[in-house]
């Protein structure tokens, strides 16, 4: 059963295309990730789904309801956490939560079980004003406020942007728990490493879908054998790789360079000796499986 469905959605702003012919569907109880860099069109897709924007073309349904015609019913059933912190900074944690619970026709007590695990972490500060909270705490509060009316589908727009790594990890664990409650979650993020935490992902660039699948299938379908290479002088190594005609693609990836070769059965020793001849030392080479980022770059290049 589909929780939401998008068909051939396009949206333009002042002649510029933000989303171009995008179609995908999300099953009930799934964590679905919209992965792409800033400006790829993630927020626009989320705003169309949350009935905040009208698509120029195409149609979309959320929980079986049309986003254009049945927007009122949809607004009763979804939770939405916009990209930037969107709570009242001059209200306390408690007041914010109470306010949004009441606005969404419910009470904090009624659905406390949903937010309990998250709320207990910020409860000691419940009298503190939201504007004075740390990034991670703000985000937890925003999640509580988006969840308090037990939405069928939860839309999160870049929830982990600007949040420290520990809080990011905690946040994804919270999402996993929400999945147990049968809440469908659509989350957008520019962080490729978060893609593996989703059940299925859509890779987006310049308003176009590159691929929609499970993270495993996307990385599994990476066409070439991939190597991670490290050397004493990384700058030199990267320059060398970009000019070597045996190299199919190479890009920097943390402390390594991820490289694929035109000959997928290339001898590792040959590569090392070639690099050594060019004056590189401390060369470390190993075969790796592709990450989402590798797949993303590969899809972009094709």
């Amino acid at each position: 059963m589909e929780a939401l469905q998008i068909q051939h959605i396009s949206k333009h702003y002042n002649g510029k295309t933000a989303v171009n012919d995008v179609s995908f569907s999300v099953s009930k109880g799934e964590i679905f990730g919209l992965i792409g860099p800033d400006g790829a069109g993630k927020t626009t897709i989320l705003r169309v789904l949350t009935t905040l924007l009208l698509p120029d073309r195409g149609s979309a349904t959320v929980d079986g309801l049309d986003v254009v015609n049945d927007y009122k019913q949809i607004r009763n059933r979804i939770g939405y956490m916009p990209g930037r912190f969107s709570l009242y900074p001059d209200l306390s944690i408690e007041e914010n939560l109470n306010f949004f619970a009441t606005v969404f026709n419910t009470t904090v007590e009624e659905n406390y079980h949903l937010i309990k695990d998250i709320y207990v972490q910020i409860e000691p500060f419940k009298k503190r004003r939201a504007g004075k909270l740390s990034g991670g705490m703000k985000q937890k509060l925003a999640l509580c406020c988006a969840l308090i009316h037990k939405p069928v589908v939860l839309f999160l727009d870049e929830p982990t942007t600007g949040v420290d790594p520990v809080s990011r990890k905690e946040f994804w664990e919270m999402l996993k728990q929400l999945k147990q409650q049968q809440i469908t979650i659509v989350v957008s993020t520019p962080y490729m490493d978060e893609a593996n935490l989703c059940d299925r992902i859509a890779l987006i660039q310049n308003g176009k879908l590159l691929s929609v699948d499970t993270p495993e299938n996307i990385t599994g379908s990476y066409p070439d054998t991939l190597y991670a290479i490290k050397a004493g002088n990384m700058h030199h190594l990267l320059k060398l790789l970009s000019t070597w005609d045996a190299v199919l693609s190479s890009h920097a990836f943390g402390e390594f360079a991820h490289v694929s070769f035109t000959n997928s059965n290339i001898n590792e020793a040959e590569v090392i000796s070639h690099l050594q001849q060019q004056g590189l030392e401390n060369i470390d080479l190993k075969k790796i499986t592709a990450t989402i980022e590798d797949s993303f770059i590969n899809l972009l290049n094709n």
Partner: protein
Amino acid sequence: MKQFLIFVKKEFAHVLRDRKTLLILFGMPIAQILIFGFALSNEVKNARIVVMDQAKDDASRNIIARIASSHNFELVHTVNNRRQLQAAFKSGTIKLAVIFPANFNADLLHQNKAQLQVIADASDPNYATTVTNYVSSIVQDYSAEINEQTVIPYRIIPQIRMLYNPQLKGAPSFVPGVMALVLMLVCVMMTAISIVKEKETGTMEILLVSPMSPLMIIISKAAPYLLLSLINLTSILLLSTFVLDVPVKGSLLLLFAESTLFIITCLSLGIFISIKTSSQQVAMLISLMGMMLPTILFSGFMFPIENMPLPLQLISNIVPSKWYYIIVKTIMIKGLGFTAIWKETLILTGTTLALLAISLKSFKIRLS
């Protein structure tokens, strides 16, 4: 209903927790009433004058004594020749000079008429007119007194009575003006800013996605400011009654009812501005320039509308504060009832309904 109440509670929290807003909201009306009441006034007090008395007789001394004892004037010194007189005007220290020619009293007694010269610094025309009028009336008083015994045939004496404001005080005319100004500013600016703020912080996005209907959002947003404005109105009326001695002569209930109508006009204007703008600064500028200036210029409280050229008079008709100003003046100063202001009320109601319809119609249920 629960949604509405928590929304109003939230709105009050915004206002009460922000000192600057509080200051604008409650400090401004008090400050304006006091400033207009004590600092700004059309009455001239202690105008500095000089006297050149070439007659030095009974009549001239008598008139000089009367001028000097008036609280309108402060006799700086006497001069003996025209050069000194000119120097005094040039230095800018005096506003008026009174010159008695030689043989003033003799002329008066023997030729039955005498002349004296009044010279005023007319770089401020209103001021000059006012002070010369004061002198004329003093001189007239004097001539009336010396003529008491003699019977002059064919004399017409106007019996002047200043209705509604017998002492010609300034306060009765500006209290209604300040009321219009303050309500306009508070309602328009505060509602506009508070809605635009929600747009800026992104909370409007969440409110839109919530089950609350747009109409409900607007009503809950405007209601707290209606209440705050009524509190402001009360404080202005209290100040006016007890500090400025300008009580409400007519029905207090009618005054509050008409004020509520005007407040709703202003709230709809504020909502309209907030829909059309996207930053707090712009909303504030438009509210200030677009609302405060027309209120000051066209409500008739600073500048009489009758003196304006016809196009401006026509423009003044679309300024809601003009009608409110007339209504308040009628109720508060003249003490008249609804029958005297039904026309103005009708115009204001029409404007309000139109504005309300426009702003509700243009409120977006989506982004952009």
